[in-house]
């Protein structure tokens, strides 16, 4: 979707302000939200793509004005309700009002920590040969789906060079739409800055994206 989350190349957000000696969490609740997000992961109630799409669908004014972990919290709570893991009246009451439905395993416990503090694999079996190889010139498609995509606006409809081939991965555009993994070849595609930003672009700058094969066409 052409959402406000797709920020590459926008102007007006001001300077980048690093915070010296920044703590990992600025408030206790932020750590609890992060930990709950990780813990919920073991139940496989939704995927990383679903969770990103949920944040993208937040109203632009909300997205732009609320703290990072508040968005995570709202996403978690909404998805937990949507998936029937908790109910809206329980949120209103601030406590559980009925037993868990479809709880097929015990609680997320200390034994599960290793499963969620290291990244899993997104490799999936290839469905066919790769269409492109490193060195190929490719054009990104000019697509504007209303659903989730990982092809940023600034890199649509531009010519670049395939630099790396990463194997086949679960395809976020499909996964977030509830249509399954639909594994696709994943490439690093490199663009000259002039191709993306015009003649006034910073000289000597190259930008790359990670592009799934359906985003690309032969030049």
């Amino acid at each position, binding site marked *: 979707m052409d959402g406000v989350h797709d920020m590459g190349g926008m102007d007006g957000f001001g300077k980048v302000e690093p*915070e010296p000696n920044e703590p*990992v969490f600025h408030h206790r*609740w932020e750590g609890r939200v992060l930990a709950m997000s990780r813990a919920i992961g073991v139940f496989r109630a939704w995927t990383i793509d679903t969770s990103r799409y949920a944040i993208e669908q937040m109203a632009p004014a909300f997205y732009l004005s609320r703290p990072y972990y508040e968005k995570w919290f709202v996403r978690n709570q909404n998805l937990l309700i949507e998936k029937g893991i908790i109910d809206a009246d329980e949120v209103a009451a601030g406590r559980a009002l009925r037993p868990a439905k479809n709880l097929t395993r015990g609680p*997320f416990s200390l034994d*599960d920590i290793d499963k969620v503090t290291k990244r899993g694999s997104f490799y999936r079996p290839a469905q066919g040969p790769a269409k492109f190889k490193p060195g190929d010139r490719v054009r990104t498609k000019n697509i504007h789906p209303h659903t989730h995509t990982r092809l940023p606006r600034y890199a649509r409809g531009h010519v670049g060079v395939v630099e790396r081939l990463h194997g086949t991965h679960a395809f976020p555009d499909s996964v977030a739409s509830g249509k399954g993994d639909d594994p696709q070849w994943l490439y690093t595609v490199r663009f000259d800055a002039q191709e993306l930003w015009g003649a006034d672009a910073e000289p*000597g700058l190259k930008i790359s994206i990670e592009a799934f094969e359906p985003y690309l066409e032969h030049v």
Partner: protein
Amino acid sequence: MAEHNHEHEHGEGSTLTEMDLRVRALETILTDKGYIDPAALDRIVELYETKIGPHIGAQVIAKAWCDPAFKQALLDDASKAVATIAQQVGRVGEHLIAVENTPRLHNMIVCTLCSCYPTDVLGLPPTWYKSFAYRSRVVKEPRAVLADFGVTLPADTEIRVWDSTAETRYVVVPMRPAGTEGWSEAQLAKLVTRDSMVGTGLAQNPSEVV
């Protein structure tokens, strides 16, 4: 930062208190229903506050500076290479890719669409990495962004920005500072800052380390 200032503007019934209550309520519901054990949440917070952080990446980089074979393995397949020293640095997941800075090339990492970050080796991302300013600007004007960090590169250094738009995760191998010949890996690791592994900084010079 716009995202952050907001929560200090409320006065009575601040976002802090309201968020504490809302988050506590959700944790209570999930605990009561048997989905989570709060002790496990405590442990996750503790891990990210004390165990999973940029010191992991710093050890990896220091080893790469000292051991050419390891550096080549790291550049070929970072997940695999780091797995060979898991005893030392802990376990690292899939799809990690290391890219090397040289006198001619400076690499920078971003996620313009959300906040993808090489968490396994750097821990959770700092606020600036998730900020709208960084996400919007670094793909278009990286030298101006570097200036915000007090970093100036030679005019003829090529800049390469890697936008993490899939599940691959990039980490920068900064250049080894001059004057560190004969240093041990442990000494060198102290020079490797988080920002140098994202590309918004350089490794520290010996004179910068007290």
